[in-house]
């Protein structure tokens, strides 16, 4: 067995203290990764419990209605705030971004470590809330119910408030890193598209998250002191809460998807061995999505009593988001055209992304249409839609990125055969779980309901069976990744033939990222040039 490079960021310096006080962005990224994967497992267990309950096997219930409400709230809150939002930026982004721009670290390494511990601190509150009478409000914490229920809304929202700071600090760090720490010669349009994706994400993190912060503070004060801002009995307005909440939470949806799109923009050219098509269009569409994300929050409130005119404008603006999203998808497809595609595991996830995200995006158009939304809002159609975007989009991209950079992180390869099996199982299981929910929703099954009439049973059962296939895929993935972590074959510095700067390094990279001065030999996607020059490295 080949051995790993003698000196790398994992063993230099040694000792647990050198890890918990580390200022190295790579180590911080990996610590994030550990916590994020743990959150994913926790949120996943709640998801399986939800599906198991809804199976209504032989007409029996697995849990009480109150418990069910708490379980789906925890599933949502953990998956959104502890897993998806930090997943790509804080874990993969932290690890890769400085390497991609040829820097030794992010701009503020101490702030980076602080943001990790703030994340852990916020997670402690969120987990504590589970033990102290978990919130049963849904992850949106809508007033007036969230102001009156006697479950532990305060510790959960306080946890989310703290997690917000972590997200802000990561975003701030990335913006400054991209502006000030790019290596000499790396102009804006020589940056890899993943960096563009993270940059657009960071802008949203910085601009939207403080508004969530103040919203949750208002909610907490409403519960503690009855300040009356959201309470109609005291002259307040519960709809105002929804406006505030979605002013953050809709942009947050793009905090989740934009970095995923960035990863796909890396995977497709590498595994199609072809220069990315429409580099600038992809880069600018990320910024366009970030900009539009702030103007569409009202589409969550078409039926909650906002004015019809506001609804019309929000509907129109929502349709605009389809343009930059479509630009990206068409550019990725054009990149594949006449490429020599290798179907390695990361690329399978990229294909899953293309397929699932497109369905998720298009069904979003159904929901953005005013009249259609009246029929579909708050049904399983919505649940299926956002799972296609969040899980079919972001999680697939995250898994693709995780496999793609796995050899770079640990210097070891995973088992390609099992990785392919897992990718296929996840894809099939996902579609069985959630496509059935589109049908359920269009037939009128409301979301978050504990009980349903018999006519919905067969579709619910199919969905639950799908979740088992999905679960099996993830278990296989966990097994071969853990195996690879300890026993995997040593990886070369550039197992995929990537051209971005992190692949000019050893795997795993040295502590200071680059053993010798990085040079920009090629642009990040110039797959034509090494071939033309007869080198083909």
């Amino acid at each position, binding site marked *: 067995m080949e051995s790993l490079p003698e000196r790398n960021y994992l063993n230099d310096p040694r000792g647990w203290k050198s890890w918990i006080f580390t200022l190295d962005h790579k180590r911080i990224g990996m610590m994030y990764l550990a916590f994020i994967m743990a959150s994913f497992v926790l949120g996943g267990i709640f998801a399986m419990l939800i599906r198991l309950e809804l199976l209504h096997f032989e007409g029996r219930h697995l849990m009480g209605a109150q418990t069910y409400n708490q379980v789906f709230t925890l599933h949502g809150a953990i998956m959104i705030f502890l897993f998806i939002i930090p997943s790509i930026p804080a874990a993969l982004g932290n690890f890769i971004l400085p390497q991609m721009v040829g820097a030794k670290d992010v701009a503020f390494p101490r702030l980076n470590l602080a943001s990790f511990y703030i994340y852990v601190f916020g997670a402690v509150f969120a987990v504590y809330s589970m033990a102290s009478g978990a919130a049963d409000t849904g992850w949106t914490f809508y007033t007036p119910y969230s102001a009156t229920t006697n479950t532990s809304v305060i510790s959960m929202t306080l946890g989310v408030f703290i997690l917000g700071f972590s997200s802000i600090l990561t975003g701030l760090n990335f913006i400054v890193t991209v502006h000030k720490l790019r290596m000499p010669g790396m102009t804006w349009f020589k940056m890899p598209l993943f960096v563009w994706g993270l940059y657009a994400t960071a802008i949203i993190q910085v601009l939207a998250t*403080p508004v969530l912060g103040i919203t949750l503070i208002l909610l907490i*004060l409403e519960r503690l002191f009855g300040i009356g801002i959201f309470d109609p009995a005291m002259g307040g307005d519960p709809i105002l809460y929804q406006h505030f909440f979605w002013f953050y939470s809709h942009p947050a949806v793009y905090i989740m998807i934009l970095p995923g799109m960035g990863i796909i923009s890396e995977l497709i050219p590498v595994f199609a061995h072809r220069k990315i098509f429409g580099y600038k269009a992809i880069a600018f569409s990320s910024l366009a999505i970030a900009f539009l994300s702030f103007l569409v929050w009202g589409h969550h409130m078409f039926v909650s009593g906002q004015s019809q005119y506001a609804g019309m404008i929000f509907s129109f603006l929502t349709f605009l988001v389809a343009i930059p999203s479509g630009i990206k998808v068409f550019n990725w497809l054009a990149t594949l055209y006449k490429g020599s595609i290798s179907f390695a595991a990361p690329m399978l996830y990229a294909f899953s992304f293309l397929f699932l995200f497109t369905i998720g995006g298009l069904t979003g158009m159904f929901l953005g249409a005013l009249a259609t939304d009246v029929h579909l809002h708050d049904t399983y159609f919505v649940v299926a839609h956002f799972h296609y975007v969040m899980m079919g989009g972001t999680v697939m991209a995250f898994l693709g990125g995780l496999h793609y950079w796995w050899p770079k992180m640990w210097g070891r390869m995973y088992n390609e055969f099992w990785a392919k099996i897992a990718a296929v199982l996840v894809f099939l299981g996902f579609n069985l779980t959630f496509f059935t929910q589109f049908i359920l929703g269009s037939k009128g099954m409301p979301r978050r309901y504990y009980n349903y009439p018999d006519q919905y049973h067969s579709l619910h059962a199919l969905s639950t069976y799908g979740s088992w296939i999905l679960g099996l895929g993830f278990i296989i993935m966990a097994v071969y990744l853990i195996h690879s972590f300890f026993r995997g074959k040593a990886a070369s510095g550039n197992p995929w033939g990537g051209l971005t700067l992190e692949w000019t390094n050893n795997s795993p990279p040295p502590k200071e990222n*680059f053993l010798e001065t990085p040079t920009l030999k090629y642009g990040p996607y110039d797959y034509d040039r090494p071939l033309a020059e007869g080198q083909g490295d």
Partner: protein
Amino acid sequence: MIDPLPKVKEIRKAFMEHTHEHAPHLAHHFSEMEQQRESAKLGMWIFLLTEILLFGGLFTVYAIFRAWNPDMFYNAHKHLNVFLGSINTIVLISSSVTMALAIRSTQLGNRKRTLIFLAVTLFFAAVFLVIKYFEYQHKFELGQLPGKYYTYTGIEGNNPHIFFSIYFMMTGLHGIHVIVGMGLITWIMRKTSKNIFSAEYYTPLEMTGLYWHLVDIIWIFLFPLLYLVG
């Protein structure tokens, strides 16, 4: 192959080699002081932007409820003490001036004057909080409290408790920022007295100054919105 300019090559060399001479406050991942200073400044401005958005939520709440209850806001604001509010405005503006003078003194290399100006800034911040304390205490006694704790009966109009909810939230959040600022100024004073700053390196002092000016500016918006409604 992209051929970098000679100057670029030089910077790149400096980037990699740890042997070149380090300025004492230059972190390892920056190649020169200028880059480090610019990064800190950009980061600070982005942070201040998030602060504005945090307060922005409360300003939005204020705008909505004042638009709904213009008469109540007018009646309720008369119960705030304009005289004390004005004094506090003057105190905070003066503290911004002394903060700017402290930075100027460091630029001129005068450590003693820096310390004096920082101490005066700290003193003004304390005066602000003491005056705020007396204002709060007066309202507590009268029962002009937020939300369901509101017991005062002398204000006409719909839901006067909302005005006091907003008043206490806005001034409270601002007050927390003043306290944090006092902590920062104390920290900066310690650093100054240890002779860490010079005309070449005083980034933490400058960042604290930026923060303090933001705290000041937010008050300059709060004062007319809350005290000078009519």
